[in-house]
């Protein structure tokens, strides 16, 4: 009855020959489709490799030439900086909007709901164009008492550069998503945890920062990670308001040299690297916040 399983890494101890079926005598089920799937995958990969090697339009040497070229790296830095700033500002704004939405004060709740409705409705490209052209709508920006005297005034044309317009537009676009992600996390903390905290007489601030937020963070992180990744890709829109981000830098090169596809591939490779780095950071954070679960 017992025979060594072919291909097994280590032969299991044979079962005593009692005539009763024994799991130790079993072999894995046959899986013909597994081999078919492998074959298809190998063929597709071979095709891809052959295409890359044979194509004279891909111009891999050009890709290599520009991958670490200075204008591209400058653009890369701009993309990273924009993503970082818009993530921080968008998350801070989002957190405030979220707290307002959960507030016991009705006016705050309505304002937050309106904020989310407006900034989630307007496409990011439209927002970038709008903030870039703010000087037309509001020529002078001033800070002061509403309907009263102002303490400082600036020309909108000086304040709104492509950079500030990009930061404002991307942060505002990011904020309602952050707000909703944070709210879903805060609402997902079991009520019993909050009851236990309040029953111990923990002050509201400690209950929020030491009990509710850390537990919510675990739930917030995965969607927040996706959100940062889509924001990173969203920064590629800023080239329409004359900013030289990663894509903008690639475009500036290929409008001169007409090597469109190789430079787009340079940009693509960098986007893939950036997203891989973000993904790695996200899984590290997720592991850190999943202690105790």
């Amino acid at each position, binding site marked *: 009855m017992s025979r060594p399983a072919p291909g097994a890494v280590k032969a299991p101890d044979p079962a005593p020959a009692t005539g009763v079926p024994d799991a130790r005598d079993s072999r894995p089920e046959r899986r013909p489709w597994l081999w078919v799937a492998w074959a298809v995958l190998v063929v597709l990969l071979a095709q891809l490799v052959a295409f890359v090697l044979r194509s004279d339009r891909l111009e891999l040497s050009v890709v290599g030439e520009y991958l670490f070229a200075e204008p591209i790296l400058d653009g890369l830095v701009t993309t990273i900086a924009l993503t970082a700033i818009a993530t921080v500002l968008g998350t801070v704004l989002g957190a405030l909007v979220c707290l307002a939405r959960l507030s016991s004060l009705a006016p705050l709740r309505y304002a937050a709901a309106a904020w989310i409705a407006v900034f989630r409705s307007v496409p990011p490209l439209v927002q970038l164009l709008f903030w870039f052209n703010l000087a037309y709508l509001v020529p002078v920006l001033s800070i002061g008492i509403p309907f009263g005297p102002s303490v400082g005034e600036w020309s909108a044309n000086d304040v709104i550069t492509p950079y500030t317009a990009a930061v404002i537009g991307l942060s505002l676009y990011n904020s309602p998503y952050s707000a909703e992600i944070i709210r879903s996390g805060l609402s997902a903390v079991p009520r019993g945890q909050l009851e*236990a905290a309040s029953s111990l007489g923990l002050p509201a601030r400690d209950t929020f920062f030491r009990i509710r937020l850390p537990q919510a963070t675990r739930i917030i992180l995965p969607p927040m990670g996706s959100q940062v990744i889509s924001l990173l890709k969203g920064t590629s829109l800023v080239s329409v308001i004359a900013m030289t981000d990663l894509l903008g830098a690639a475009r500036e090169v290929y409008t001169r040299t007409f090597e469109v596809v190789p430079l787009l591939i340079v940009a693509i490779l960098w986007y893939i690297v950036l997203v891989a780095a973000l993904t790695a950071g996200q899984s590290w954070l997720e592991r850190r916040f999943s202690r105790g679960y």
Partner: protein
Amino acid sequence: MLRVRGLGKRFGDTVALADVDLDVAEGEVVVVIGPSGSGKSTLVRCIDLLEDIDAGSVELDGELLGFRVDRRGVLRRLPARRTAPQRRRMGMVFQSFNLFAHLTVERNVWEAPVRALGEPLAEARARAHQLLERVGLGHKGDAYPVQLSGGQQQRVAIARALAVRPRLMLFDEPTSALDPELVGEVLAVMESLAQERTTMVVVTHELQFAREVATRVVFMDAGRVVEQGTPDEVFGNPRTERLQTFLQRFSAAS
């Protein structure tokens, strides 16, 4: 020490508590029994300010809980965030333990003394360790709640509630979520608290515990206190028909 007068609580159209009076003196162990839905959990939750009461009043050591009287003599309901000092004087043990899942066992115990009472960390940790020893879990301080059995989690929850040095301990069906063989270890801890003359209000279905440990047994039904007295009176000589039926059903089951 605790004085409940005319307490009323409704959830929508359902009356959970109606005109409940209850007095608990220092060192008493009051065990509240009654069928499911009789309002006994709601009673301790109202005392612990986990529910807003609709009628009546709760006083602890002569201080009105959950309300203040303003300068014009108007009674004003305190918002939840302003009742923290009052709630620290009561320790609550929940049916579902509610240990803080992201904190170690030891930190579950010292978090409130440090944050709420401002105890120095070293002192609070030493005391947390003492309290864990007392519930037989001195070796589990570094574990996370999820790594403990239900009975162990509930013992940690008791240590955590004791850590803020409450005047009064409240237990809301502390053994109802436990496997039968784990019930004993939790009841043993509660019994030792009772022996040290800790003032306790215990909502439970463990009638044996009520019989042996209670100084007074309160029987509730349909949101009202129907009968109360010493264990001997309540179990040996039930006066109302409702209590008689309740006890019969239980003795038939066990």
